[in-house]
């Protein structure tokens, strides 16, 4: 086993632990911190898979901006500690089993996938990302932008409605 495989398994174990902590910790702020840790670990995986651009964007957008807003809201509302279990427990267990079964079926398939890391130097570079975003996928990209704009305008309208 070489060094990168060792690092992968160490990080993967940490990722599993922090993801479990997200759902198991009773305090919401602690859960959010565990989620930030999980997001940072995922970004390290992206960097190890020769995609530093996606890794850095993961930190910048998810860990650095969206989670800050999460914390912002949590701190304002200051929710009480949630009791475990409840009416949703059976449904959640069912969903988890379904997802786990699906993943296990996928992982135990014997055929090996093609090497995900392409041979070119440009793989995962900003140039490559820009070319696919603004070349091959420019229409879906623009549609997604319009969707976000609609959401922003909608939020402003909802916030102003009382007046």
């Amino acid at each position, binding site marked *: 086993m070489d060094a990168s495989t060792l690092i992968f398994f160490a990080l993967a174990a940490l990722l599993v632990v922090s993801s479990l902590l997200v759902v198991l910790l009773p305090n919401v702020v602690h859960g959010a911190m565990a989620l930030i840790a999980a997001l940072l670990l995922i970004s390290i995986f992206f960097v190890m898979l020769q995609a530093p651009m996606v890794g850095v964007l993961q930190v910048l957008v998810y*860990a*650095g901006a969206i989670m*800050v807003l999460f*914390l912002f809201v949590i*701190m304002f509302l200051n929710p009480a500690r949630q009791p475990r279990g409840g009416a949703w427990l059976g449904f959640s267990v069912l969903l988890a089993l379904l997802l786990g079964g699906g993943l296990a079926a996928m992982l135990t398939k014997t055929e090996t996938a093609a090497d995900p890391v392409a041979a070119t130097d440009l793989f995962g570079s*900003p140039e490559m990302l820009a070319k696919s975003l603004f070349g091959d996928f420019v229409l879906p990209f623009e549609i997604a932008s319009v969707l976000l704009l609609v959401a922003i305008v909608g939020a402003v309208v909802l916030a102003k409605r009382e007046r």
Partner: protein
Amino acid sequence: MIVDLAIIATKAFLVLFMVLNLAGVLGWIERKGSALIQDRIGANRASIFGFAGMGLVNTLIADPLKFLTKEDFIPPAGDKFLHTLAPCMALFTALVTFAVIPFGDVLNIGDRTINLQVANINVGILYAFAMGSLGVYGIVIGAWASNNKFSLLGGVRGSAQMISYEIAMGLSVIGVLMVYGTLELQEIARGQGLLMRDLLPQWLAFLQPLIGWLPAWGIFLQPLGFLLFFTSAVAETKRIPFDLPEGESELVAGYHVEYSGGKFLMFFASEFAEIVTAAGLVTTLFFGGWQVPYLMRDGFHSPWGGQWLLSHYAVVGLQVGAFTLKVLFFCWLQILLRWSVPRFRYDQVMRLGWKMMLPLALLNVMVTAVIILAAQ
């Protein structure tokens, strides 16, 4: 292999050492410099055998000793783990950003070429922003874990302010990225080694004698971008005029009200490390980084003809020296700003960020794009 690792470790240690020590020296400049600005005497209480060294003994030896030996108080109703984690996060993110800032061109020793930059990643500037955006957690988590309403108010203000100014900061840099065509900070610094006459398009050729001799630094190509970036960088360091998260006159000390001893020292050091990082980024993006005007790899070449050849080591020394001087200048400028302008009100901070800087940054991107298209 071993030698490569040793070189990387040396570079990382050197940069960390310089940033941390510069942060300490800035603490001295802040206290003695503010005294100079306000016509006071400033820190002069401590001395060793009568040697006070212009307050150096006071600020660099007595103050840290006092911080480190003080009681580390954690509010009983607060969160002990997060209260300790918060200053670590603040200091960590402030220190690692400097890894992508180049402090010189390449150094050749024997047949080995050493890139004078700790980490050369192809998304350099985005890495700096990503680490900057993580810096807000130190404040928010510290504020929440203190279980104090003044802290919490400071933390909430801090997160709102930093998110707002990150947007203006990111957009103000896009112009620079468009001009130099890369995200790598080392390539941006190299691009600034050109002269204006290399970049002037045909239809602006009449400006040649007027500005052709200027180095193609970001400040000349992106003056508005520089103003916007520097303002948002100052806002990100959370100092006056943008000290809303701390808000001495209304929130006691904002997010670090409940911090004492070593942990407060860590918040304090992270603030100064952020100043150094902001100065390094401004230098690299807008003031040529390690470039000395007209200094090529083999010596000075004047734009009016004439040259003065220098050895490789002299050139590298000049570059590193120039970078250090520029960073020191911008550190000093930030401290001067902090002690000469009054603070903003909260609504003024938000209005400046969203209603003035954001539209101006977008305008800057548009105008730059039009000029680049016209020049092609």
